[in-house]
């Protein structure tokens, strides 16, 4: 079971009910539960949507799934009048390697997700919300299902919520194993009972989404932040973070650190401090070699590049991404060639095959890196890997192609010498895959 961790440098907003038994609706109510949705309704049905969206805009909250799109703005894009029903869709298909933050939200504070879904629904005029968890999270689905049932039993969901005259229902379900479904349009396909292949955009979900209706789709952490923001005020939340990056977010720090865990840090917090102070530094006092800062799709940072603030803009300037907040730390024993091979093996496995650059590119990069790793590579292989990755970028319907290409380019560009050493027969690092595994590279 996930362990709760804490550190004095944390700024607690989203984690305030963690470890407090808040999956129990009574405990949630004791801790300001369902007060935010009532506060919204108390603005009056006419003023409420504008009030919610203005507060969300003022909060500076940006999408916690990885893209970092301003949430208030996203909600404001949904047309006020629509012939088709509008929907709220909560993306709990957390599957970016290195990311386990939504896992703890569903476990510790499922009602915050439910309340956030209601708030998003009130903001855009939806009557139905979906909470979609990844298939592996069956035990969390049960927790969320119970929370939803308890909310219905209290009369918080269903008809005439909190005397507003408005109805709101929530449906929960899981996927069945597919990284690709974490992409918003693929998730809508999956929820419609289809293969999780992406849709072309535009139209964007805010206009044509689930069942063809205007849809707000947000990451579970984004949605769970909404009740806190309404209660504390948009400006107060914004001030916790850095410029144009409001508030706090959950960072899952994993890999070679002393104290791995999910920590809540203000946006803009130093990556170096997050690793060396919050997570206790590199495990066993070893030297740090590299950091994958926001889930496996983010270009790697070297040990010299850690003096950067953890927000969307600063990470972008540093040539990488804040992503989903999954910080993976690699110590000096890691073979970057092996690591790069494992990363591309994942994307090759998960590519849905819809777009040829992604389907073929991930496969050829994997094959080429396998050869380099096994000792049969040539200098041209390294250039070929780079060429393949560069030609995948921006040429696919959904970002999976980019997600495979970006980290590959990062590894090859920043650790080129290590790839060249492999070709020359000098294998750096301590490989962890067995012979059989490295030939297949994963499965």
């Amino acid at each position, binding site marked *: 079971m996930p362990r709760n961790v804490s550190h004095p440098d944390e700024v607690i907003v989203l984690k305030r009910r963690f470890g407090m038994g808040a999956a129990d609706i009574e405990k949630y109510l004791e801790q300001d539960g369902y007060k935010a949705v009532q506060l919204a309704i108390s603005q009056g049905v006419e003023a409420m949507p504008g009030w919610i969206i203005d507060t969300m805009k003022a909060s500076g909250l940006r999408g916690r799934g990885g893209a970092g799109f301003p949430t208030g703005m996203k909600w404001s894009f949904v047309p006020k009048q629509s012939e088709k029903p509008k929907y709220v869709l909560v993306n709990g298909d957390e599957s970016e390697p290195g990311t386990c933050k939504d896992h703890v939200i569903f476990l510790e504070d499922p009602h915050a997700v439910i309340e956030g879904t209601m708030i998003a629904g009130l903001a855009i005029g939806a009557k139905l919300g979906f909470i979609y968890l990844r298939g*592996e999270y069956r035990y969390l689905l049960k927790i969320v299902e119970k929370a939803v049932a308890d909310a219905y039993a209290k009369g918080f969901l269903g008809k005439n919520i909190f005397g507003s005259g408005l109805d709101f229902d929530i449906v929960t379900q899981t996927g069945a194993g597919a990284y690709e479904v974490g992409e918003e349009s693929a998730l809508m396909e999956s*929820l419609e009972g289809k293969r999780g292949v992406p849709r072309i955009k535009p139209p964007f979900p805010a206009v044509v989404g689930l069942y063809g209706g205007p849809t707000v789709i947000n990451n579970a952490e984004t949605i769970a932040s909404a009740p806190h923001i309404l209660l504390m005020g948009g400006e107060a939340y914004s001030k916790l973070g850095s410029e144009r990056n409001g508030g706090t977010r959950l960072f899952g720090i994993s890999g070679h650190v002393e104290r791995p865990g999910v920590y809540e840090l203000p946006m803009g917090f130093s990556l170096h401090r997050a690793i060396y102070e919050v997570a206790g530094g590199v495990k066993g006092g070893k030297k740090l070699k590299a950091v994958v800062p926001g889930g496996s799709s983010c270009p790697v940072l070297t040990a010299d590049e850690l003096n950067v603030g953890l927000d969307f803009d600063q990470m972008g300037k540093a040539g990488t991404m804040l992503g989903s907040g999954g910080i993976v730390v690699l110590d000096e024993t890691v073979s970057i060639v092996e690591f790069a091979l494992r990363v591309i093996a994942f994307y090759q496995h998960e590519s849905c095959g819809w777009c040829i650059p992604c389907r073929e590119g991930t496969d050829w990069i994997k094959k080429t890196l396998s050869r380099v790793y096994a000792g049969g590579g040539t200098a041209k292989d390294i250039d070929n890997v780079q060429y393949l990755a560069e030609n995948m970028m921006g040429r696919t319907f959904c970002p999976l192609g980019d997600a495979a290409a970006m980290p590959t380019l990062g590894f090859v560009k920043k650790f080129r010498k290590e790839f060249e050493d492999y070709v020359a027969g000098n294998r750096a690092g301590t490989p962890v895959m067995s012979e059989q595994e490295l030939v297949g590279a994963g499965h």
Partner: protein
Amino acid sequence: MAAIDQSIFSPELAARFDHLVTIYPMKRSALIPMLLYAQDEIGYVSEAAIREIAARLDLFDLEVRNVLSYYSMLRTKPAGKYNVQVCTNISCMLRGGYEILDHCKAKLGVGHKGVTPDGVFSLEEVECIGACCWAPAMQVNYDFHDELTTGKVDSILAEYKAGNGKDVK
């Protein structure tokens, strides 16, 4: 809905399916949950299950198969009673995920997607299961087990073998 005269599923699951098709704006949305729950009951998605689910959703069998083949957790052949899924993605890899996988392979005497001759265990190497901060991790059916060591894996497998595994579905 096409009438289902004789369901192949238990009365409880059949009732659940009757309900599931009513909760979505389009009943086809119930397809993936139905495939999962069918697999939980039968152990895999059988031909008969495909036919009944297709009938319940007014789909062709082919449409169900098309979706079924996309999702990695769905299978058309039986797995072991306890399906051991070891994560070897990056966070687990860095903390010994491959050691755990190799240990399970040796211990169970099967490889990736193999089933032990007694049908008790099957083994899968899986991609990130969202337990990165408690790595290395694995799932047995839907249960998470984390901060694994080879010794811990031995006692976990022994518990399942003795029939003491909790929440087998």
